């Protein structure tokens, strides 16, 4: 199953199960989504529940949040998370803080989803990873799927969750196919938010990462195995809450940590993981933590430079 179909079926099933769930964003209806994630939904659920919005991220995000205040469960699509910058006020000030500020009177069951991070050849304003940004905000949950199973299980969990969830997809993974279990195809399937997945067990070094980089890490682990090094690959799945327990348990076992992300190094997800391990498992480390991140530059357009700006 492709990640695209996994996301599409997850939305479809949740819309079918709960009439309060609706989709909104630019091009989500008639055009079926810029990346066809919402394919077939307009036909099935009609324009009231698959809402094509004008081009106003601040406007439609604010409206989604208002609808969530009033009891609906909106799934808001950003054509890319880079464009969510125009709406970040509503994601942070209106969505993330409202349950707290209202003392639990107003919860905000909303999902903000769309492609995040680098795609291919689309330059600085389409290529940034916002995982670290959103993961620094209390009140938000931040998920990043890698496989089709992740995509289905996490998106369904996000839609059912009573809190606002930022759901970071990756454009280059949409078309990628993954084997999927019968269990994961069941409409009741859901993954727990806040739990990482050990994709590959190992004993010599821990590699933590998320989204597309999980695939890179698994390939790296295969290469390392050829050299007789056993790497444990942790797919974070949830950036906030962060599964510190799984990460630290793994590091205590392997005594080495390599963190990988596509985003910028400073104040990144890797930096937070590094801090957590230094605080909780310092004495278990046999070597300094290695941090692999994107170059500290806005993404260049030229393909050769773009490749160099990302973990290889």
């Amino acid at each position: 199953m492709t990640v695209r179909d996994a996301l599409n079926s997850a939305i479809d099933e949740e819309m079918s199960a709960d009439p309060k769930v609706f989709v909104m964003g630019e091009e989500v209806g008639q055009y079926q989504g810029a990346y066809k994630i919402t394919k077939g939904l307009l036909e099935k659920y009609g324009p009231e529940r698959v809402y094509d919005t004008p081009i106003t991220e601040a406007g439609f995000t604010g409206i989604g949040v208002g609808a969530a205040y009033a009891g609906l469960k909106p799934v808001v699509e950003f054509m890319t998370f880079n464009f969510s910058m125009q709406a970040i006020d509503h994601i942070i000030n209106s969505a993330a803080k409202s349950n707290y500020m209202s003392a639990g009177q107003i919860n905000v069951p909303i999902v903000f989803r769309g492609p995040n991070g680098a795609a291919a050849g689309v330059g600085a304003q389409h290529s940034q990873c916002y995982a670290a940004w959103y993961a620094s905000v209390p009140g938000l949950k931040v998920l990043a799927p890698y496989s089709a199973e992740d995509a289905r299980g996490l998106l369904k969990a996000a839609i059912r969750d009573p809190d606002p969830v930022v759901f970071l997809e990756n454009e280059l993974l949409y078309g990628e196919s993954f084997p999927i279990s019968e269990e994961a195809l069941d409409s009741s399937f859901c993954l727990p938010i806040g739990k990482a997945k050990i994709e590959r067990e190992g004993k010599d070094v821990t590699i933590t990462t998320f989204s597309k980089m999980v695939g890179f890490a698994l390939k790296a682990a295969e290469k390392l195995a050829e050299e007789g090094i056993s790497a444990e690959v942790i797919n974070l799945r949830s950036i906030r809450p962060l599964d510190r327990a799984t990460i630290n348990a793994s590091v205590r076992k392997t005594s080495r940590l390599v963190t990988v992300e596509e985003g910028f190094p400073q104040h990144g997800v890797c930096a937070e993981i590094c801090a957590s391990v230094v605080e909780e498992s310092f004495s278990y480390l046999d070597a300094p933590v290695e941090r692999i991140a994107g170059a500290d530059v806005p993404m260049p357009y030229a393909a050769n430079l773009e490749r160099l700006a990302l973990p290889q």
Partner: protein
Amino acid sequence: MAHFLKSSSSKSALLNILKHNLALVTPARRHLRQSLPPSIRASQNPISRLCNTMAEKLSSIGFHEDANNQEVMDFPGGKVAFTHEIHFISESSQERVPCYRVLDDNGQQITNSHFVQVSEEVAVKMYSDMVTLQIMDNIFYEAQRQGRLSFYATTIGEEAINIASAAALTPEDVIFPQYREPGLLLWRGFTLQEFANQCFGNKSDYGKGRQMPVHYGSNKLNYFTVSATIATQLPNAVGAAYSLKMDKKDACVVTFFGDGGSSEGDFHGALNLAAVMEAPVLFICRNNGWAISTPTSDQFRSDGVVVKGRAYGIRSIRVDGNDALAMYSAVHAAREMAITEQRPILIEALTYRVGHHSTSDDSTRYRSADEIEWWSKARNPLSRFRTWIESNGWWSDEAESDLRSRIKKEMLEALRVAEKSKKPNLKNMFSDVYDVPPPNLKEQELVVRQTIKSHPQDYPSDVPF
């Protein structure tokens, strides 16, 4: 002779009057001139001198426009007539949009004014709540000056907008306020004690001491927690209105903002989307002349905010915000249109911020004391409405002094109780960040508790845990 509109049919008469006044009125001659066949148009010289007589001559052939493809164009949204003049739409109309009012500055009902009649009971509650709001403001303001509150913002001068809007709505209508509309909560039954508890952030505050003073909220009373970020409530309101629409509720959403808020991107996004979504929402702008120290002349160059409605395809009206009867009638009519026709309505209420922006501001540094004085005396919303209810025989000097002394006493008592009341518990610091607290928050709370236990002398003693 005033038109009293008592029955439901006469209410709809008011609706028709308002709609008529709001309708796009195009002088017939201009409409025809734009649609003249080329042969006739060519004979116009100069066009402007001839257009009056030409229009009369052509009144029978105006319908040719549809038959002549050169004259009109089918374009998304409807037919567009062609013109051969280089005619720019003027940046402003020759006359400013008129302002609807019922009572003159002295509180006398204007002859032939159209309004929705209010009963004695409602009128007396309106007036009493306006007075209560003013007394509450004055006492909280003084308490802040004495250092007992960190912050306060008064609603002085804008009592009529608050209370008359509230009176014209039903409790099911959902309010997305800015921060100068506590009167709607007051009308719906929020007590002076509840206001005081919020301002002091004590253990009885429904917000668990998390919001700064004046940022009230009550789920029970359909009043959303005040958002301090300017104008974010506008798109939120449209979203909530969309929810009411989907549930086919007999209610609308009402959101408030100031003249300054209309400059925010959220204002434009919200109005545009409300029109497109056909959301039952009332946008009420309190144009009070000042956004902190910025006068409206530095805020926008349009004729206020009311004219912006048409740009988004939204029916709009300008109202004297210091005339409680006019505000009541306009909001009443707007609500009915919003719900029955499922559409947004924009109301621009002209008023004046008599108080400072907030206790962080001294407005006499940027505006004259005379200006403030004039608005507070000559255009006072309370005294105007009082004159009207007195002229109906519904109010007296005695009732006035009884009300004032009772509210003042209640208010001082509420303040005393709120101030003495215990502060929120430590657990309130960590709860409600999420529906269920994640492990890291539980850990943080545990660490704080252990640290306080082991070093009690280093921590404030007023945090119950």
